[in-house]
Each structure stands twice: as C-alpha cells, then as structure tokens.
C-alpha cells in the first residue's frame, strides 16, 4: 500500500484506474459465471470479494488519495463491488435452485408402492344397515327401543294377540327354551320370533305418545340355505298417539323406502293378516333391481322380484286394539301403527347379495368391502 501523498494523482494509482477496475470486474463476473457449483462459487467469492481480492485492495488505496479524489474513486470502486456482489448473489440463487431441484429429483419415490401394513377392518353390513334404517327414524323424532332375545312367551305372543293355538306358536317355527328342574317343564320362554315383543315392552313401559323403532336379531327354526336363516334381523316400528291413521302408516313407509332406496321409490300395501295389527297389510316396494321393467318382459327376467315388479318387505298395519288393551293403553283414546321388516332381505337386494349364507359365515372377503357404513 502506498503512503498518503498529497501530490499523488489518483489517476496515476494503477489499481484505481477506471480501466483497471473494469478489468477486475469483468474478471470477477466471468469467474462467477463460470462457477459450476456452490463449492466453486464459494471459492470465486473469496477470490473476488474477500479481503485479498483485487477490488478490496483497490478500495484500500482510496484512503491514501487526496480528499478531492476520494469521492470519485470511492464511487467507482463501490459500484464495481456492488456489481460483483449482485452477480454473486444471483449466481448463488441460481446454483441453489439447481441443487434443490437435483435433490428433489434424487429424493423422488414410487408413490404407487402398496402400503397395506394392517388390513382394514369393517363392520358387518347388517349391523351398519340396521343403524342406517334406525337413523332414518331417529331423524324423525323416533327413539330406539330394545328388548331381550330370550323372551317370555307373553311378550312374544300373548300380548300381541297370538291366541294360544295360533300356528305361529307351534314347534315348527319357534325355538322353545327348556325349563328348570325336571325335564318337560314348560319354561314359558322362547327365542323371540320377531322384534314385535319390543312393541309390548315399550307400551307397558311408556305413556303415549310413543314413537319407537327396534332393530334386532330374531330366531325361527329354519335351516340355513340360500334364502333362509334360523337367525335373522328385523326392524320394528311402533307409533301410538291420538288420531293416527293408516294414511300415516303409508306416509311413514313411503318416507322410509325413499330415504333408504332413493326418491323415486314407491310402496304398495296389500291386505293381509297378522294377529297384532287390524287392519293389516303386506308392504311391497317397487323392485330395486329392475324397477318393474321385468314385468311381462320375458327377455329381461328379474331374479330379485321373480319378474313381479314388486318386492315384499314385510308386514304392517294399525296396532290391534287388543294389543293396546293388553299393554294398558286406552284404545278409545289412542290408535297406532306398526311394522316389522326383514333387514337381511332388504340388504340382500339393496346390495345384490345372492346367498343368505354369505352374511352368516363371517368370511372377511364378503364383509370387508362394506367398510364402516353402508
């Protein structure tokens, strides 16, 4: 470094000559552009902006200049350093972006790899469907009632106006429970043959108005085959209030099938006989599969409805006043309606289940696709 010298002509200082500074800048910019990676750029940075770099050394010469020359030289060097730093920064960003892009490419994985570490579980479609049906009614203000599966005959039959010699009470339909003690004692207890005893239990327990549904498991002595099971499921509905009519029953049924099967679903009531309802009806809905198009159309037979166009859902009707009396409800003041449907059958045609056995054998390949809710 030169010592301060008042007579010194800045133009004469080699390092501060404009050409010399421009040359240094060009050198620096070329080196920056040539740096191939961040490591090389770091070296370029030291060489061209570090303490020992030509521009830094030139900068120090300024201090030795006479005051009038300082400003000019300072401006020149400052601009030069600014240009170099700016180029450095730009190149730094450029190289970092390149590096990042490269790393991301290197880190790329095959996202199509399978990842079934734990197989998914599922709820049984019958359970899920019973909840779904119940929820339709809960949303209308009904409550869910429950009762025991091993039930007293009085609730299962007598209270529902099944007289003692009714065919449904006979051995071929009902599972009877053995009595205590010596053999042959009649226990008066059965496996409930329908969910209807819950009607009686509910009426005995609650004051009208009563609006309940009862989904549950029931038993009949049928051997298991493609369309029968000794254990199956029903949902029972009971409404007892002042002034309820068959039109209300019809409306409630319409609402249910539309909620479960779609807004264009229709129902049909046919007169029938059940001891616990009077008048009684069988309820059909338009075939979910063929929508009635198989009727009289031999080219398009429908297995679900046997080309009848209608599917039988179950029995319903106005609660027989005798049932109300047996449960302590005044039939002069209150009327009611009730229905009971086979959930299994409904599920079978809603989901195209061909064989009843699939629902009771517990094969995970059948159940798993149904997931949590259906």
């Amino acid at each position, binding site marked *: 470094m030169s010592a301060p010298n008042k007579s010194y002509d800045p133009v004469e200082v080699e390092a501060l000559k404009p050409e010399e500074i421009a040359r240094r800048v060009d050198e620096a910019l070329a080196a920056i552009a040539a740096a191939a990676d961040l490591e090389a750029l770091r070296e370029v940075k030291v060489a061209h902006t570090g303490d020992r770099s030509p521009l830094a050394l030139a900068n120090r010469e300024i201090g030795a200049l006479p005051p009038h020359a300082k400003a000019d030289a300072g401006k020149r060097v400052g601009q030069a350093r600014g240009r170099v730093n700016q180029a450095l920064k730009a190149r730094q960003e450029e190289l970092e972006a390149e590096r990042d892009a490269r790393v991301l490419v290197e880190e790329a994985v095959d996202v199509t790899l399978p990842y079934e570490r734990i197989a998914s579980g599922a709820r049984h479609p019958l359970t899920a469907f019973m909840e779904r049906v119940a929820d339709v009614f809960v949303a209308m203000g009904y409550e869910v009632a429950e009762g025991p599966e091993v039930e007293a005959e009085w609730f299962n039959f007598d209270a529902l106006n099944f007289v003692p010699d009714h065919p449904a009470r006979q051995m071929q339909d009902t599972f009877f429970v053995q009595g*205590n003690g010596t053999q042959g004692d009649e226990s008066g207890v059965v496996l409930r043959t329908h969910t209807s005893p819950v009607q009686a239990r509910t009426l005995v327990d609650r004051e009208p108005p009563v609006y309940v549904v009862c989904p549950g498991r029931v038993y009949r002595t049928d051997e298991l085959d493609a369309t029968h099971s000794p254990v199956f499921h029903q949902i029972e509905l009971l409404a007892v209030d002042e002034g309820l009519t068959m039109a209300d029953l019809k409306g409630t049924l319409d609402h249910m099938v539309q909620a479960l099967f779609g807004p264009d679903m229709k129902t049909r009531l046919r007169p029938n006989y059940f001891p616990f309802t009077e008048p009684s009806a069988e309820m059909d809905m338009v075939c979910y599969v063929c929508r009635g198009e198989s009727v009289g159309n031999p080219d398009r037979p429908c297995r679900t409805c046997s080309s009848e166009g209608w599917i039988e859902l179950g029995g319903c009707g106005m609660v027989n006043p005798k049932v109300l009396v047996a449960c302590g409800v005044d039939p002069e003041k209150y009327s009611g309606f009730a229905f009971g449907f086979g959930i299994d059958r409904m599920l079978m045609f809603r989901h195209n289940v061909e064989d009843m056995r699939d629902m009771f054998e517990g094969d*995970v390949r059948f159940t798993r696709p149904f997931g949590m809710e259906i």
Partner: protein
Amino acid sequence: MRVPLSWLREYVDLPATTTGRDVQEKLIAVGLEVETVERLGDGLKGPLVVGQVLTIEELEGFKKPIRFCTVDVGRANRTGEPQEIVCGARNFSVGDKVVVVLPGAVLPGDFKIAARKTYGRTSHGMICSGDELGMGDDGSGGIIVLPPVTEVGTDAIELLELVDEVLDIAVTPDRGYCLSMRGVARETATAFGLPLRDPALLDVPPPNAGGYPVKVADPIGCSRFTARTVTGLEPEARTPIWMQRRLQKAGMRPLSLAVDVTNYVMLELGQPLHAYDRQTVDGPIGVRRATPGEQLTTLDGTKRVLGAEDLVITDNRGPIGLAGVMGGANTEIAAPVADPESGRLRGTTDVVIEAAHFDAITIARAARRHKLSSEAAKRFERGVDPEAASAAAQRTVDLLVLLAGGTAEEGVTEIVSPRGPRTITIPADHPDKVAGVVYGRETVVRRLQQVGCDVYGQDELVVSVPSWRPDLSDPNDLAEEVIRLEGYENLPSTLPLPPAGRGLTERQRLHRRVGRALAGAGYVETLNYPFIGSAVLDQLGIEADDPRRDAVTLVNPLSDEEPDLRTTLIPGLLGALRRNYGRGTHDLALFETGPVFRATGEEKPARRLVVDRRPTDDEIASLDASLPQQPRRAAVVLAGAREQAGWWGAGYPTGWADAIEAGRAVAREAGVELIVRQDQHAPWHPGRCAALLAVADGEEILVGNAGELHPRVIKSLGLPERTSAMEIDLDRLERAASGVLKAPRISTFPVATQDVALVVEAAVPAAEVETALRDGAGELLESLRLFDVFTGEQVGAGKKSLAYALRFRAEDRTLTAEEASAARDAAVAAAVERVGAVLRG
C-alpha cells in the same frame, strides 16, 4: 287353495277376455295372496283325440316290454284307418278308450310329435299319460284310460279341459272361507263389481225324524251335525272326467266316485264332508270326547291313541273317526272290486254323509297332537261356515244321485245348537278414522253389505256379520273390510308429527362406538349363530363348575350337537376364524358384539298373564325373572400377521398384546382405563392371559379377559398357532364409565425430560413398576412411557431392566433442573421401595 279359472267362471260372469293374471291382480288388491297363476296347456296343439285300442302286439327282446298297437281314432287321421302306435305302458287292454296324440301335434314343454321309427316299428303318434298332457301325476304312472262311454275321435283337449289357468292362493288364517270356490268367487265378484251365483243357495228339505240316528254329547265341540243317506250306488259308476279334472286342477287326486264327490263339494262350498259305508256303521253315530287310551286306525292306516281332548265320531263299537280331522279305516268307503266268481263289480252301495261343524280350537289341537294336517282340519281350524252344512249335504246327495244312480233317503238328521247372529256396533265413521280417509256412511254400508253383513242404523251402525266370517269380531275388523274393498292402493300418504325425540341413548351410542373402534383397528365384524354344545366348551378346557357351563338349553334345537345358547362369544368367533383360515385367508382379526346367555338357575317358569288389561308391575317383574341374564359383550380373535412384512420392513405376528390392546380400545370408548393383571383362565395360555378390570363405584370389577389361547385349545380346535382372543362385558364397562369428561388444563411452560432404567425381578409386572413411578413422581409428572425392556447377562439372571422416559412440567412456571431431578428421584425411590427396583447406572 288352487282355483281353476274355468271353475270360477261358473259363479261369476267374468268377461271372456279376463285372464288369470287380471283376476290375480284384483284379488291381491282385496287381500287374497295369489302366489302364482299356472297356465295349463300352454303351447299345447292338437290333434289330440280319443282313440280305442284295437290290437296289441307284444314286442320281445327289448330291455323293457314294448307294445305295438293299432288304435281307432275315427276320422281324426283323415284316413279312418287304424293308427299304428308303439307304446311302453301296460295299463290298458284291447277295447280301452285312450288319449292319442297324432303327428303334427305339440305337447306341453314344446314336445313336437312326428312319426318316428322306434323298436323296429314306426310309431304314428303316442298314447298319452296324464303327465305328458300336463294334467299332473294321477299316481298310476300309466296312460289315461277313459270311461268306456267316451266317443272315439272326440277332441281330447276340450274333453279333458287341458287349457286353463289355475290361481294358487295362500289363504291367511283369518280367511278360512276362501278355502272354497264359493269364498273366492265372492271376493272375485266384489272385486270386479259383478253379481255372485252362490252355490250354497240350494233347496234343502227340513230335518225330520227319519234320518240316520245321531247323538251329539258335546255340543261345544260339535255345534251342528247333518246326516243324510244315499242308497243303491252303482259300483260301476265312475267319476266323470269334468269332476276328475277339477279335482286334479285343485290339487287333489281322484279316488272313487263317493270320495271324489265329498272332496268336490268341500272344494266348492268349503264344508268338509265325510261319507261312511252304512253297512259297516254299527248303530247310531255319536259325537263325544275320547276316553284316554282309546284307539282308532285312521284312513291313512295309522293306529292312533286318543286323548281326553280329542273329539271323536263313534258307533256302537267305539270311535269311527277323529272328528273334523280324518275318518276311521273301519267305516271306509270300499273301492269297487271285481267279484272273482261273477266278475261283477262290488263295492259300497249305501252311504251316510256327515256334514258337521266342529270347534276350531278342538280341531287345531287334535291335528297338531296327532301331527295330521288334513284338508278337513285345515278348514275347520280356520273356521267353516256353519250355515253351509245342510246345503253341502244336499249338494253331495244330489251329485251321488246324479252320478252314481243312487237314491236319496227321505230322512234328514240335523242337530243344531242354536246361536244368535253376531253383531258389532261401530260409529259410521269408524273406518274413516282408521284409514284417514273420508269414505262416508253410504260407502261404508255398501262395502259391509258386499262382505255379507246386514247393516242397520245411522250414525251408529249395528252390523250383523255373515256366518262364514268368524274372523269379524271387532270394530277394526269391519274397518279393514271397508278399507280393503275401497283399495289400500287408494290410501293417501301423510306423515305424523312425533314429539321431539332424544336421539340414541348413551348405551346405544357406546355399542355403536365399540363396533367402529374395533373396525377402525382392523377387525372385521362377524355375526355368528349363538348355538353351542358342550363339546366346544370341553375343547376350550372350561371346567365343569365354570359359570360358562350354565347355559340356556333349547327344547327343539336345530342340531342336537348344539342345543345350548352361547355363554361366551369366543366359540362362534373361533368357528368363523377357522372357516376363513380353511378358505385361505391366514391373517385374521375378527370381532363380534352381542349378547351371551347365562342361566342363573333361579328362573321360574314364565306365567301366561292375562291380556284383557295391563299386567301389574309385579307380574311384569315375574316375567323378567323368568329370563336368563343376557349381558352384551364384545370379543375379538386374531391369528397370522397383525402387520405385514413389505418393502417398508418386517411385519409382526398377532399375539397376546394385540388381544389386550383390543380390550383397551373397547374400554376407551366407554371412557374407561383398564387395569390389566396377570391371570389364569381357560381357554387362555396360563402364562399369557390377562384379566381386564375396571373401577365401578369405587370397586374393581372384572370386565374381561385377553391373551393368547392355550396351546391345547389351539390343537383341539384345529386353530392356527398362537391364536389370540379377547372378550369383554360391555354392560359392566358401562357401569365403570366415567361420565362427562372434564377438559385437561394445558401448560405452555417447557417440558423437562428424564430417562430412568430400573432393574427388577423378572416376575414383577411392569404395571406395578409404572404405578410406583407415577405415585412417587407426584403432580409434576406429565407423562411416562416404557420405551425398552431388556433382559440379559448385564442385568443378571431372573431380572429385567425397564427403561422409562419421564416428562415433567408445571402449570405455572418453568421447572428448574433441580426440581425435575428431585421429582425423578422421588419416582425412583418409590419404585425401589415398592417393587425392589434398582436404578441402573
């Protein structure tokens, strides 16, 4: 009830274009369940004619005897020459009239007839059996032999009424009257708005003293008994083809003329009838209850021992019939048999006809007791029109006179217990109120009259119901009649407005959550049959005095091997596990929720309470006391891999820990933290079994068990190795449920982490070490986690090292290092003192 459309038309003038399907639709709408409409003779095409067998040549040398016949078919074959036909049947002789189908014809089932070579001859057509013509099996298996009077060349399609439609109606228990043509015709007439020709409207002579003597000792069991006598029946007389065909179409097999006539009249009028061979009845006919031990051989050849409730028909010797169910063999109408000497036919010539009315319940019980469901019993059980008895007897007499050349005796016996008309009083708008439709009085009255009721009164209707409708007894029964005839399909659709509901109960929500939690944890739900036998309990190693042996037993199980109801969910789940395994799925996690059934031994027989009022609370309690306990449970079984090996690394097998964790998952849904203790309990591995406990009302209660199954159980049930299981009682868990959760306070001050490794005896349960650490650490402890368990030389034989990460935090300040260390030291000190732990350096 099978109803031929051609027969139905005899009582209702249906338009000629009306099809069986049209009638089906209308009848369904008024409440008759017409299950099928069978189209008889569909696709049938002639020529099908009556022929007479001229010659029979027996062909030898074939596997079965074959006949080459010539048959006179008149001009039906255009030539008038005898038709040459090969036939394999043998039940006919030269001179017999038979049904011949000629080339060019088509039989049901698209069976085209052409001349063809067979057995070395050419057969120009076929001699037909009933089966081939779609007439149904007549039991003979042979070809049809027609009565000799039939004319050769007659068109057999018309003669045998081969083209018809038959409605098959499933008659509900309340509509017994529809087990007759008369009843179905009445419904058809009303449904079509046409008049009815009632076949029961006959001229009947009044009763007199000259009839066959009858004594009814039980007027409740038998409220009516009509006896008529017909003599001089010709044994040669055969049932005419039209009657045979109607019986066949209705599903009955023609037998002999007298029997066929009684069956025919029963089908027509719904009144079961019985014909006794007068020669074999000894003295007056009686009706009484049987003396216990009395015996009767019924027409089906079964010897029956009678009980005191059985109603019997008697003569001087004793029972000759089980009333309303089946006649006795000793007075059976004899089928005509050729006398070996004279060659003349001999058979019953004089008959006594019984048309009686028996009590429905008496007959139902008898049919059930003797496991004998006859056409007669089926009708009496559902109620027969008592007023139709004398008409039915008359109709039978008329037919026997007409068809069998008999003579009606003038004597008419009729014993009747008088009973008044049954009336029901209803407000005229009662049907309107039930239906939710305004029909108006006029419609209500008209509809009730169509049903057969007499109706009086204005606002209050006094309705007297017809004798054939014993099911009509209450106002709603009459409402149903009006509504069904007005059409259920015309009911409007309205929605009632229930009061605001409370949604699901806590218990119902819990049951749903448990299912979702287990499914979410990878378990698949199964619904297993709850039937078990003692064999599976033996295989599970359950001791004789275990409460799971206290099963509820069925009187009539589907399988004698499994007469009991499940006392645990495990057997059903293991069955499903094994089934899946057998079908090639080896990594399995299954669950079930549902009740188990535990007999307490205290159950008293459930009483049959009255139904004319609400039972008292005590009575209801007595019913509930007759039931076994039915607690709801959840259970899981697991086998194979819990987590699969894959590109991510190793998998791991299912095991005891998964089973216990499933228990914790269920308990969490109830807001219960389980206490897990070592246990020994069948069917689990004695060293890998946990008792699951919870605190309810301040007391620990056992809620379930979990772990790996005993190797012996796995072997005896053929299960995959290391199968694990858990079962937990949801009702008990519910008792331990904590209720509404209080939200935790969250401290935002920094956490201080301290790790400790403790050496304890191998037998010390980790849960006890943890409890000691927690108790010792005090309130500053935020959480504690066991992150390593280590055994080996470094820790010494019979010992294990447990490494815990402890996290401390205060609610109101940053903890100093000294505070955190002091808390840790206190935790360790408690472990040292309570479980003999040694701090590892």
